């Protein structure tokens, strides 16, 4: 199956509620071209709705077929969440919830994720110090592009299943 990117539009109504709709598009275009498409399509959508087209986001689909060890574990459950809270230098909290806790990473007698475990440590360090890629390091940030600088806590929580951000 061919990969697609998605342009997601958020629409707001008169009562302040919002909902989203998405348009799948081919991947073989530049960011500038996607921006032109998204702006044009936003106008066409605006013409067929009574609410406000509040936001357009491009979701780039990444080919993960080369990822090794990426299998469904027996008893895995996306209602069990790895809940991480990070902070920026300015003290702004950044929450990251990853569904599907590996129970072997939870410290005995608590809901704390063991940050000395190598897999947990790798994730935490990637969030706090970034990942070195060709030509630079990509550093996770908050929504204002302020770098994450530290972890506040890592613990397991349980929630109803659904899409996580």
């Amino acid at each position, binding site marked *: 199956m061919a990969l697609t990117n998605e342009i997601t539009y958020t629409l707001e109504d008169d009562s302040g509620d919002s909902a989203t709709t998405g348009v799948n598009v081919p991947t073989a275009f530049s960011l500038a071209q996607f921006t032109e498409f998204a702006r044009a399509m936003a106008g066409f959508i605006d013409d067929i709705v009574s609410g406000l087209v509040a936001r357009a986001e491009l979701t780039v689909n990444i080919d993960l077929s080369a990822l090794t060890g990426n299998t469904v574990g027996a008893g895995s459950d996306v209602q069990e969440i790895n809940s991480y809270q990070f902070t920026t230098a300015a003290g702004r909290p950044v929450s990251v919830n990853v569904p599907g806790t590996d129970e072997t990473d939870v410290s005995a007698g608590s809901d704390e994720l063991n940050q000395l475990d190598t897999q947990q*440590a790798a994730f935490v360090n990637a969030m706090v110090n970034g*990942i070195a890629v060709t030509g630079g390091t990509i550093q996770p940030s908050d929504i204002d592009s302020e770098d994450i600088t530290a972890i506040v806590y890592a613990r397991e929580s349980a929630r109803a299943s659904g899409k996580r951000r």
Partner: protein
Amino acid sequence: MEQAATIIQQTLAANGGVMSWDTMINAIPQELRRYVWEALNHLRAQNIAAAQNRYDPELGGVFEIVTLGQ
């Protein structure tokens, strides 16, 4: 924290400047392991050593402890 940082430096030197997280943890006595992150942050700030995540075309994501400033 200083003890943990010293052990990390020594173990890193003994492993040629690169080691796995588990190698580092196993070298640190149990009672000092709670200082690991603090020690790593200290060593990073001093540009001596750091935990590093990187992309490798063959291996994907790699996580290791490396010597800095070389």
